[in-house]
């Protein structure tokens, strides 16, 4: 049996004050948003942090071994530490709220949540992160929750003794494989590229599992099969060749991420990938709106980079607000 951990949820009591004009609204509660929260609070900005959850993608990562100061820490523990630090300051935090639109309302910015709450602020930081990219193959949509999963850390325990496939051989795919080795009977890895793109330390760990893991590199997924639940996937070599059917009950899709930038569409400049374009001070195309972390066009998607960008965005927002006061 694994050692049990006990996590206490964020205190959500403070919530958001509707009708109140905040200095700064931070959208997103991942490493970028939480770090921005701490920096904004230290500048005594009247701040609201609004987010679906606290931790963002960090929650979906089982092990983090490259965040400085922690030789090894689990994603949820790191998120809990971030949360503890941000909650040491008197800012409003509204968890469980998703911001669906962002625009101008007179001199201020107006944000609307999925539950139709309205937030007003003089400056905004968008730190909404990314979400899983779908494969877009037949069978995928129909079988989500029937064996198709985008959250390996959530759903892996349900596949004890079963055969599974992980699509994607980057860092998130490799992490999913490492988790699944302990649980599943057999783990297939499928990727269109000719080999692993994950950090060598992860690849070594997978190699140590031996024949339990079988990789199909240079293959693409043709379809996911099954009626009420996943029964298998069909893959074929890229550039032609014979189809192969893998009899699996679970398919974990880890082929990268798409930015959560829907709230900014038509308001902020986005690049082709849908990421918010920022300059080196985290400024977006609209003065007063800043962005940080994975949702931006900053190339590397790492916890430590997102946290650093969050700090930058808060300091830039502070400079902007000071300038406005003149």
């Amino acid at each position, binding site marked *: 049996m694994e050692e049990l951990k*006990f996590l206490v949820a964020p205190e959500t009591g403070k919530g958001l004050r509707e009708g109140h004009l905040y200095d700064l609204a931070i959208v997103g509660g991942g490493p970028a948003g939480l770090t921005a929260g701490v920096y904004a609070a230290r500048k005594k900005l009247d701040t609201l942090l609004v987010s679906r959850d606290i931790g963002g993608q960090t929650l979906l990562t089982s092990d983090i071994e490259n965040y400085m100061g922690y030789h090894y820490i689990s994603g949820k523990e790191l998120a809990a530490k971030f949360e503890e630090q941000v909650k040491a300051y008197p800012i409003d935090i509204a968890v469980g709220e998703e911001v669906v639109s962002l625009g101008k309302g007179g001199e201020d910015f107006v944000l609307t949540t999925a539950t139709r709450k309205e937030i007003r602020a003089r400056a905004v930081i968008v730190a909404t992160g990314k979400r899983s990219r779908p494969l877009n193959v037949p069978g995928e949509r129909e079988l989500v929750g029937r064996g198709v999963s985008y959250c390996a850390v*959530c759903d892996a325990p349900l596949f004890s003794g079963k055969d599974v496939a992980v699509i994607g051989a980057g860092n998130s795919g490799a992490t999913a494989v490492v988790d699944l080795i302990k649980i599943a009977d057999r783990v297939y890895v499928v990727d269109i590229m000719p080999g692993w793109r994950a950090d060598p330390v992860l690849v070594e760990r997978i190699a140590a599992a031996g024949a339990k893991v079988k990789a199909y590199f240079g293959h693409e997924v043709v379809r996911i099969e099954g009626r009420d639940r996943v029964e298998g996937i069909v893959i074929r070599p890229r550039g032609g060749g014979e189809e192969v059917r893998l009899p699996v009950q679970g398919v974990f899709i880890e082929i990268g991420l798409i930015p959560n930038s829907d709230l900014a569409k038509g308001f902020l400049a986005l690049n082709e990938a849908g990421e918010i374009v920022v300059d080196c001070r985290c400024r977006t195309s609209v003065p007063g709106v800043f962005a940080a972390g994975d949702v931006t066009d900053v190339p590397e998607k790492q916890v430590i980079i997102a946290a650093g960008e969050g700090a930058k965005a808060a300091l830039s927002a502070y400079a902007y607000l000071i300038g406005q006061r003149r």
Partner: protein
Amino acid sequence: MALLDENVRSEVERVFAELSGEVKLLVFTQEFECDYCAETRGLAEELAALSDKVEVETHDLLGSKALAEVYGIDKIPAIVVLGEGGKDYGIRFFGVPAGYEFSSLLEAIKVASTGDSGLSPEAKEALKGLRNPVHIQVFVTLTCPYCPMAVQLAHRCAVESELVRADMVEASEFPHLANRYGVYAVPKVVMNERVSFEGALPERAFIDYLLQAGS
């Protein structure tokens, strides 16, 4: 060895400072304790030690068969969270409420203590329209960050409506149930065996399903 470390204990004390009414945790286990039975009992005992408003009563599933039937306990480990005066709101935990679900246990203790579901006024109004009993089972894993949202919403509905009973079910401890209900993703919510869905839905959508299940 204590299950809860000092940091967690002080967080729990912060939550427990808000308790108003007394809460009783009924723990069901058995003589030869099952996987996680000892941990579940130990957890309840450690929590009770942190507040004079929280009390634990441990029962053997077979030895206290009649009581188990009263509370609808058919598997262990199980925790029933009772409010002031032993009021049964219908809050159940099957499997150890560790990991992310620990916060669901704390939340359940809080709502059972105050007797206020904390649902929105619209949700409270909508639940008055419920006609028949609904049994909600929320399947979770302990590593799922979205699961507590579904569990806590289900428990809130149980507190709000006498017709609702809400169970957290830790899927990996009850594989036969996970198999029977086709749990391949969590949270998975099953209502009265006839309505089921995956994901942590917002309050309004969750209650729409609940009303459908109880129609």
